């Protein structure tokens, strides 16, 4: 069955090539290809997970070249699980983007640019998860980043260019650091294969391995947006279109976390970086959530909560006990889903309210009760109310921290509890301002003084798009699915069915971890 291993990388790459050849022609065919390919990747990922669970890690040496020279693909339970969740999330986001593209006549997500680039991103993500050697992981990162540069500057407006330059420069610098780490490890051990590295690093002099570890942790820390290295994130994410921000927030930072998990468990299982990581985790939590509290733009607010919740995952990685890592993996899966959902729903809020600024939103609970419900569930999930999976993940981390019992671990548990409450406070603030208070002003908002760069472009499109989507409701769902959201979408005035359906599917996936997450705790 390990012949399946290259498929999650190859399928999206081939599909992207086909789409570049097709260009803007045959839009319906192109949408079908996108959805079909992503669904196929999901199916392959599920098959790989079942295989890895039943018969151990699946390994494929590409082209039959043995390990130190050839490219190795590995799907163990961790990477297969990450692949399954990331495929499910990318599929939902693609359906959402198609819904948005159909409704807006592709103003925000042009078919000939967005679709191939997005598929490249998916290929890069899959390659990073499946890579069995450090250099291939680097290549996976680069494919993903190169696609993300295009996606974050989509449309090329000035605010997006500004946000994009920050993002690109930070990403390029961290890639260079990653390359330095690879150079150090290769010079010291003569291999980049992860399995061989884990054997040989133990024999290195401690100074050399510490240098390699710190450089690698810094590179992954930038990707994961751990506190001192996180300043780029809230400045660059919010300006991109909703589907792009959603998939970035959900997946890209988690790949950094995945790298951290691999580095700390496989390559450097000693706990020399433990205190450093614990302090970084604590600062991420505190700084992130304090940043979130003062924001007035929903997208920025959610971006800051992302930074603070990265702290939870780093906390689990730093503790390194089996219980902590189990909880971390569970939390990563939960967080990929819930963060993506929140950004998608923020896109819906923007569509209904005409803005993402808390100063101008209001009364959405009455005018758009469905959006209210869609926002409320993932918000409470992120805030960690029982019995939602956000609570279970945090509970697991707290238990691991208490078991550990060190002074720093206990401090972190206390910090994490406070952070969790403050997150809840920030999200409830959004809920109160945007959904519960009386509508700010009747009629559509004027285009003045928007906060995110996407908004002016958006508002120019919005009224026309809304009326068009109403007319195109039954026919406009051609790229989507016949989901239960369609009936509801009609009642809540003209939200495209695929967008609502994709958000609902993600919420359902997020909630299903409460029931289905049990096996991952073994």
């Amino acid at each position, binding site marked *: 069955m390990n012949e399946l291993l290259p498929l999650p990388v190859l399928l999206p790459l081939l599909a992207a090539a086909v789409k570049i050849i097709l260009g803007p022609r045959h839009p319906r065919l192109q949408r079908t290809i996108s959805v079909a390919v992503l669904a196929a990747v999901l199916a392959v990922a599920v098959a790989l997970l079942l295989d890895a669970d039943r018969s151990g890690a699946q390994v494929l040496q590409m082209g039959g070249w043995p390990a130190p*020279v050839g490219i190795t693909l590995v799907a163990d339970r961790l990477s297969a699980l990450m692949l399954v969740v990331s495929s499910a999330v990318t599929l939902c986001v693609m359906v959402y983007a198609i819904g948005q593209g159909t409704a807006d006549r592709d103003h925000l997500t042009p078919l000939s640019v967005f679709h191939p680039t997005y598929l490249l991103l998916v290929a890069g993500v899959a390659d990073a998860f499946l890579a069995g050697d450090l250099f291939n992981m680097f290549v996976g990162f680069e494919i993903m980043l190169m696609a993300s540069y295009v996606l974050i500057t989509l449309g090329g407006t000035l*605010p997006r*260019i500004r946000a994009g330059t*920050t993002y690109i*420069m930070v990403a390029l*610098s961290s890639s260079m650091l990653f390359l330095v780490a690879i150079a150090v490890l290769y010079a010291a051990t003569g291999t*980049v294969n992860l399995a061989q590295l884990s054997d040989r690093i133990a024999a290195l002099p401690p*100074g050399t391995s510490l240098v390699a570890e710190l450089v690698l942790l810094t590179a992954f820390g930038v990707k994961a947006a751990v506190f001192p290295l996180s300043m780029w994130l809230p400045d660059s994410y919010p300006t991109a279109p909703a589907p792009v921000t959603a998939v970035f927030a959900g997946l890209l930072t988690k790949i950094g976390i995945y790298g951290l998990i691999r580095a700390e468990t496989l390559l450097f299982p000693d706990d020399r970086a433990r205190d450093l990581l614990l302090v970084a985790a604590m600062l991420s939590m505190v700084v992130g959530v304090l940043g979130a509290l003062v924001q*007035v733009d929903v997208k920025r607010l959610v971006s800051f909560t992302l930074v603070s919740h990265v702290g939870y995952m780093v906390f689990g990685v730093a503790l390194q006990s089996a219980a902590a890592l189990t909880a971390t993996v569970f939390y990563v899966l939960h967080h990929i889903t819930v963060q993506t959902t929140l950004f998608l729903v923020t896109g819906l809020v923007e569509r209904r309210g005409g803005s993402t600024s808390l100063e101008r939103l209001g009364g959405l609970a009455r005018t758009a009760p469905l959006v209210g419900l869609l926002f409320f569930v993932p918000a409470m999930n992120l805030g960690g109310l029982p019995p939602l999976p956000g609570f279970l993940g945090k509970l697991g981390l707290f238990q691991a921290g208490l078991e550990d019992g060190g002074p720093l671990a206990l401090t972190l548990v206390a910090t994490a509890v406070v952070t969790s409450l403050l997150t809840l406070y920030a999200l409830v603030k959004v809920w109160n301002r945007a959904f519960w208070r009386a509508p700010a002003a009747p009629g559509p908002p004027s285009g003045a003084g928007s906060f995110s760069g996407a908004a002016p472009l958006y508002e120019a499109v919005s009224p026309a798009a809304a009326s068009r989507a109403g007319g195109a409701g039954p026919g406009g769902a051609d790229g989507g699915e016949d989901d239960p959201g369609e009936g509801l979408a009609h009642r809540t005035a003209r939200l495209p069915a695929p967008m609502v359906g994709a958000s609902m599917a993600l919420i359902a996936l997020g909630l299903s971890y409460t029931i289905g997450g049990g096996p991952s705790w073994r």
Partner: protein
Amino acid sequence: MSAGAGLLAAGGGGASGGTVALAVTGGALVTAGIAMLLERSLTRLVVGILLLGNGVNLLILTGGGPAGRAPILHGGPPEAAHRPMADPLPQIMILTAIVIALASAAFVLAIAYRSGRLGGEDEVRDDIEDRRVARRRGGMRAERERRAIAGPADPIDPDELGAPEAPDAADGRDAADGRDGGAGEGGR
């Protein structure tokens, strides 16, 4: 430079004179690249990234150990026939890294061009949303204080706050604002 030092230490027994020179050159390129990365102009940033990338590539090359015969292919100059084959893996990695650096540089140059067309220059600008949030709060507090003491309403000093007066000017067409912001960011 620390990476270069680490490599020298790690290279250990295999390091001949040539490798040391390569490592030192690589370190120098990395240093120069990082110095360029601290600039604000996008074209300089591209040069910085390229220098940094080349420096790191040299470091990878030193990781391959001493020079030898051309890898995989047989033949080569007869005086090198007795020497062992050079390690091909760093060369493959460098090739990949060069391609990636090329693509990145091309994209950043395109962004610089676009930025220049839109904003008149290719400088990286700060995101001023955070300062706007701070200003909003500070402004509200100042307003309240003014009401409390009922004194003369002197306007908020825009230089002090480092943000433009009108929120709409935030697209950063105002180049001076970007530089002010830079000074403010650096000060923090």
